[in-house]
């Protein structure tokens, strides 16, 4: 029994054709299907103008969903997104009131405020081990309270700075809105971080098996903390961009982004339990959700119908590819 036959060990990674994740393929398929359906209503849905416009609007959700995705990859969730967005937008605008230095520091200041919310979430989840669903809910309420207090007490400045407006609505390259460029930059940064850095590996590792990651000597608490801070920062940056897009910040600006950001991430094939998912999927999910909302809006579908279609599409797509494996 000692002469065990052995295959030659594989020396270097063979070029296995990267299997296209069925989730991502389906999501992109649905995008095309939506556009085709839309084009029966009006051929404008296929015009580059409309598509670029959608891409631009999707960029804001894209930036926000990026943070949500990192947190979901850990197997957690961030329900403080709405008010992190508002805090980002409002604080960025507020900073602008303080002279030229304020103008320059506006966006960074907004992001730092978002990071503070993320820090509170991260400490709660990583160090106190409070379920993320509940601690982020609480920090969301606190952030709201702070913003109400701030608005009422400080005669706030809420006009976006030139930089914010330029980033959200300007054109650095002809025909390609800056917002899309920003999303592309953040997106490629995220892809890089998730696939090429120790941080990204650790995120997937923790999402897969936190105990194994911990025993491998990863400082899991720090990674979780960083992930929540990143989520807060990205939400806040999304808020600053939204403020730039609308030229101003408002309290309710984040309300409409919580559920779509979760839905976009999950529709893109990321497992809500963590550890599995790719950024390309999130891109598909974001575009899909934006397009769906836009087409229903332009078709003047009443709100009731929109909600029903929205829910049904999500369930249908998840039933197509998002089911967990049958046990036993």
């Amino acid at each position: 029994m000692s002469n065990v036959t052995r295959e030659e060990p594989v020396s270097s990674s063979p070029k296995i054709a990267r299997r296209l994740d069925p989730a991502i393929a389906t999501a992109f398929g649905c995008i095309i299907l939506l556009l085709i359906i839309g084009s029966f209503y009006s051929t404008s849905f296929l015009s580059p103008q409309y598509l670029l416009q959608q891409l631009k609007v999707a960029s804001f959700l894209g930036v926000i969903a990026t943070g949500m995705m990192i947190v979901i990859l850990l197997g957690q969730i961030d329900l403080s997104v709405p008010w992190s967005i508002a805090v980002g937008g409002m604080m960025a605008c507020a900073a602008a009131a303080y002279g030229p230095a304020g103008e320059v520091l506006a966006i960074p200041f907004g992001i730092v405020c978002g990071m503070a919310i993320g820090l509170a979430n991260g400490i709660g989840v990583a160090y106190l081990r409070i379920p993320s669903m509940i601690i982020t809910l609480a920090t969301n309420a606190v952030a709201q309270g702070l913003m109400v207090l701030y608005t009422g007490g400080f005669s706030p400045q809420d006009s976006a700075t030139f930089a914010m407006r330029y980033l959200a609505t300007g054109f650095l390259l002809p025909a390609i809105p800056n917002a899309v460029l920003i999303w592309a930059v953040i997106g490629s940064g995220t892809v890089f971080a998730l696939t090429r850095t120790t941080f990204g590996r650790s995120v997937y590792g923790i999402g897969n098996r936190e105990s194994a990651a911990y025993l491998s000597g990863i400082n899991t608490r720090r990674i979780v903390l960083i992930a929540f801070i990143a989520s807060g920062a990205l939400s806040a940056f999304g808020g600053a961009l939204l403020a730039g897009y609308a030229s101003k910040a408002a309290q309710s600006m984040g309300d409409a982004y919580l559920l779509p950001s979760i839905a976009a991430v999950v529709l893109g094939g990321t497992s809500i339990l963590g550890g599995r998912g790719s950024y390309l999927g999130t891109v598909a999910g974001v575009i899909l959700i934006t397009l769906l909302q836009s087409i229903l809006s332009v078709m003047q579908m009443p709100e009731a119908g929109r909600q029903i279609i929205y829910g049904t599409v999500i369930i249908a797509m998840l039933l197509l590819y998002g089911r967990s494996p049958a046990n036993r």
Partner: protein
Amino acid sequence: MKEWRYRLHERRGTLMAAAVFFVMFAIYVSNHPAGLTSNVVQTAANKGVLLAFVAMAQTLVVITAGIDLSVGMIFILTNALASWVVLGTAVETAFGVIAVLTTGLFCGALNGLIVIYGRLQPIVATIATGAIFFGIALLLRPFPGGSVNEELADLMTGKIFGTVPASLIALAAIVLVIWVPFSRSIIGRTAYASGSSETAAYMSGLPIRRAKFTAYTLAGLLASIGGLFLTFFTFTGEAALASGNAYTLFSIASVVLGGVSLFGGKGSAIGAVFGALAFRTIGDLLFVFDFDPLWQPLFQGVVLLVAVSLGAFGLFRVRNRLEWFG
């Protein structure tokens, strides 16, 4: 250990929630300009009971280690429906009530089917069904309005013998009729078991799917009872997206305050009821203390943050760090 200590231990979460509630309520009442009158209790009860029903609904699902983010929307949908059908003669009203409750059951069952047989994660599945339920609510009530059998409504939100709030009696009755039998049935025990350790439950040959399905379905039913009471309380129906979401989130907070573990297998709906009442009292405290109006939302947020962080103290007893990861 003595028998009574075990009893205490079993109910620690519930008792803690009850204690928190009673302390907060005592603070509230003793600072209330009107003091402890039956009107004050009635007002607090009517408001608290609504969330209590939704929190009970959430508890059933959370015990199985799931979560139902559509409870708030079932609550809204059944409110919209009730404002159409709980009307007219006694018989018509009775049929209306049955229709409302059946709708709730059906919504819950749909969640159960999708989660158990569709094998979707409860978080996303119920976000999606929540959107559908809300859409239907909007179809029913594009504008706030409608009405309800006012005699019934007054009865349910009034006082019995001029002192005891009827809504509290109704809550107690529902606990007795739904929660107690559930928790003492094999199905209920299976719900706990599958939330605590699904493998062990399977090894013990328990009907896991049936139990989960029952939990989701009853959750729908309880949410619809909440919706019915909302109608009794407001005399109208309204498809309010914000309240739907708020009740869902509040129900999760109540459940946690009530000592129910979000990881499943632990806790009781009675604890969640006290959690809900305590959560509502946070809002009432604003009334008796002279907070600047602009500080009120912050105060509520901070109290919530502190309340949910209390649970973290158990952490410092953990001596093997691997236990952190459950």
